[in-house]
């Protein structure tokens, strides 16, 4: 039983990270039907920014939760700025082009950002400090670590806030309107450019949160981490139904659990086989993903 719970929470943690990144994929897709391949790189840039910020702040004598919070906030702002700029540079000029063009632009952006970090920072693996402190009340708990607990709670809170934001705020309503029909929303006075920018900013901020949390848990980063995490998160988004916010979260968790239990009870040799096998299986029966609807309402 303990083994099962450990695998359960391990999968939940990993799934939460997938979910945080998948939200960015799914929101952008919901609004402009673009698969933003550079999204994984935003996650990586978030982690690098947090590392740089944390090193600098630690030198100034900061530690504990304030260090995590402040470097996290810096990473969020920086990543959000990247997300905003990428949209303006790489996607906005192509908004009226045929659908393949922004996709190629996204792949190009992803390669560009990877190489930019490779050249501007380093190709080596870097040690990432454990920014999440051990809770004293978690001393005797073996099935889950403090960092994992923080990751799970943060994801839950972030998802809840995002859902409320989309349901009850003006901007949220505008987002839903743009997702349904961009032209109509524009005719009714919604500032579509602002809505799209906001979508990129929110998605990037969530990716940065994921990047900071998982790097702090794993303890190392390099310029390539965004690629693999991005692929997995994209899989999660498709699994849950791309365009659907609860779908992205559910897809992330299902993927995380599948990987964790497949490794735990069968063999880690086949971790990816099970993850992608599940994807194929679900798409056969539900082509739009678990919670995806074939309708136009996507956010």
């Amino acid at each position: 039983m303990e083994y099962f719970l450990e695998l359960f929470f391990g999968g939940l943690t990993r799934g939460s990270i997938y979910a945080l990144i998948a939200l960015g994929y799914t929101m952008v897709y919901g609004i402009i039907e673009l698969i933003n391949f550079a999204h994984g790189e935003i996650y990586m840039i978030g982690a690098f920014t947090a590392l740089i910020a944390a090193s600098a702040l630690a030198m100034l004598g900061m530690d504990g939760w304030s260090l995590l919070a402040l470097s996290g906030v810096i990473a969020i702002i920086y990543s959000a700025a990247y997300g905003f700029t990428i949209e303006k540079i790489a996607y906005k000029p192509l908004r009226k082009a045929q659908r393949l063009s922004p996709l190629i632009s996204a792949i190009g952006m992803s390669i560009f950002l990877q190489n930019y970090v490779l050249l501007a920072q380093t190709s080596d693996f870097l040690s990432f400090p454990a920014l999440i402190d051990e809770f004293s009340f978690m001393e005797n708990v073996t099935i889950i670590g403090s960092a994992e607990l923080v990751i799970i709670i943060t994801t839950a809170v972030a998802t809840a806030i995002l859902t409320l934001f989309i349901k009850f705020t003006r901007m949220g309503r505008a987002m839903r309107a743009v997702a349904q029909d961009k032209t109509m929303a524009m005719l009714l006075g919604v500032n579509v450019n602002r809505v799209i920018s906001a979508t990129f900013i929110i998605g990037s901020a969530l990716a940065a949160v994921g990047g900071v949390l998982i790097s702090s848990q794993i303890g190392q980063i390099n310029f390539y981490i965004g690629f693999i995490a991005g692929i997995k998160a994209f899989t999660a988004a498709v699994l849950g139904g791309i365009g659907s916010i609860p779908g992205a979260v559910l897809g992330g968790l299902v993927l995380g659990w599948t990987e964790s239990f497949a490794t735990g009870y069968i063999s880690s040799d086949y971790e990816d086989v099970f993850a992608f096998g599940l994807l194929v299986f679900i798409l056969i029966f539900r082509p739009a993903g678990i919670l995806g609807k074939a309708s136009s309402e996507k956010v």
Partner: protein
Amino acid sequence: MKRLLYSLVMVSVILCTAESFAADTIKLGVPGAHSGDLASYGLPSANAAQLVVDAINAKGGILGKKVVVLKEDDQCKPEVAANVAAKLVSDKADVVLGHICSGATKAALNTYNESKIVTLSPSATNVELTKSGDYPNFFRTISPDDAQALLQVNFALDKLKVRRVAIIHDKGDYGKGIAEFAKGFFEKRGVKPVLFEGITPGAVDYSAIVQKIKFSKADAVVYGGYHPEAAKIVAGMKKKKMKTHFISDDGVRDDTFIKVADKFAEGVYATGPIDTTKSPMAVAAIEQHKKRYGTEPGAFYLNAYAGALCLLQAVEKAGSTDFAKVSKALRTNWFETPLGKISFDRNGDAKGIGFAMYQVRNGKYVEVGR
């Protein structure tokens, strides 16, 4: 430059062959890749042989005879190697320093074996060449591919007294290769690994495999692979407060591992090559190469240098070029070489070279056994 080098080699081959007809010489065959894609593996060995021979000749040769070098190019191709071997036999080579690649060596060995010629490779690492017992005439001054795994297993069982062991690898050629050798050695010694699994390099986290290791109650993990994944697994294990030993290979015996895994690296074991390039003899040998050829020596240079020394000194100690006497001399004597003091075991593998076990202590790798 490559052309020039090539023609130089060709000229020297012609010169050497011409010289080899002179009576009363000891002929050292040096077959290997001297042209083609893999020439950079073979030429340093040819240079090493020439330098050793020149030094010996300057002191009057061995057993009163001058030594000549017979260089032959096999391009690392097995079919060419077989022809080259036949040619060296017909040229009456007394001992052979070569071949370079494992495949070429295997193709040529039978020919030398039938003609009873002692053959020593500075670079062929294929396990079967020595362990199969098919080639009693074969020796080498490089560790076979399974040397690291053997050291890991012996260290785990003898020094750490491990009873339950989990073997993890990264599914790559290198990591999985070592992991499979380790599994074989453990089983040979009656320890059946409780886990044998591959992980996906670069995955977001490894908590599931860490839990699996914990649940398997292994005393030690043997990991075949490189440092990034090793660092993640070690950190995960330490965070779970596991006391399991972590033993890995020279993909992990790297300072980057310590830098990345930081405090979690403490206590990790890893095998790595014994560094001999700083020994006075090695420094002198490298200096000789720079002086004669004007460049830094390349791959396997020191192995070939040591091999040539062993072969010729063995001839001297045996008092003749007779096969039985020379191979006995190689097995019973210890030779001073740039690789350190070495001798050869029953199979023809060198003793005293290869890998040592290191452990991270206070943020540094420290040798803890051989």
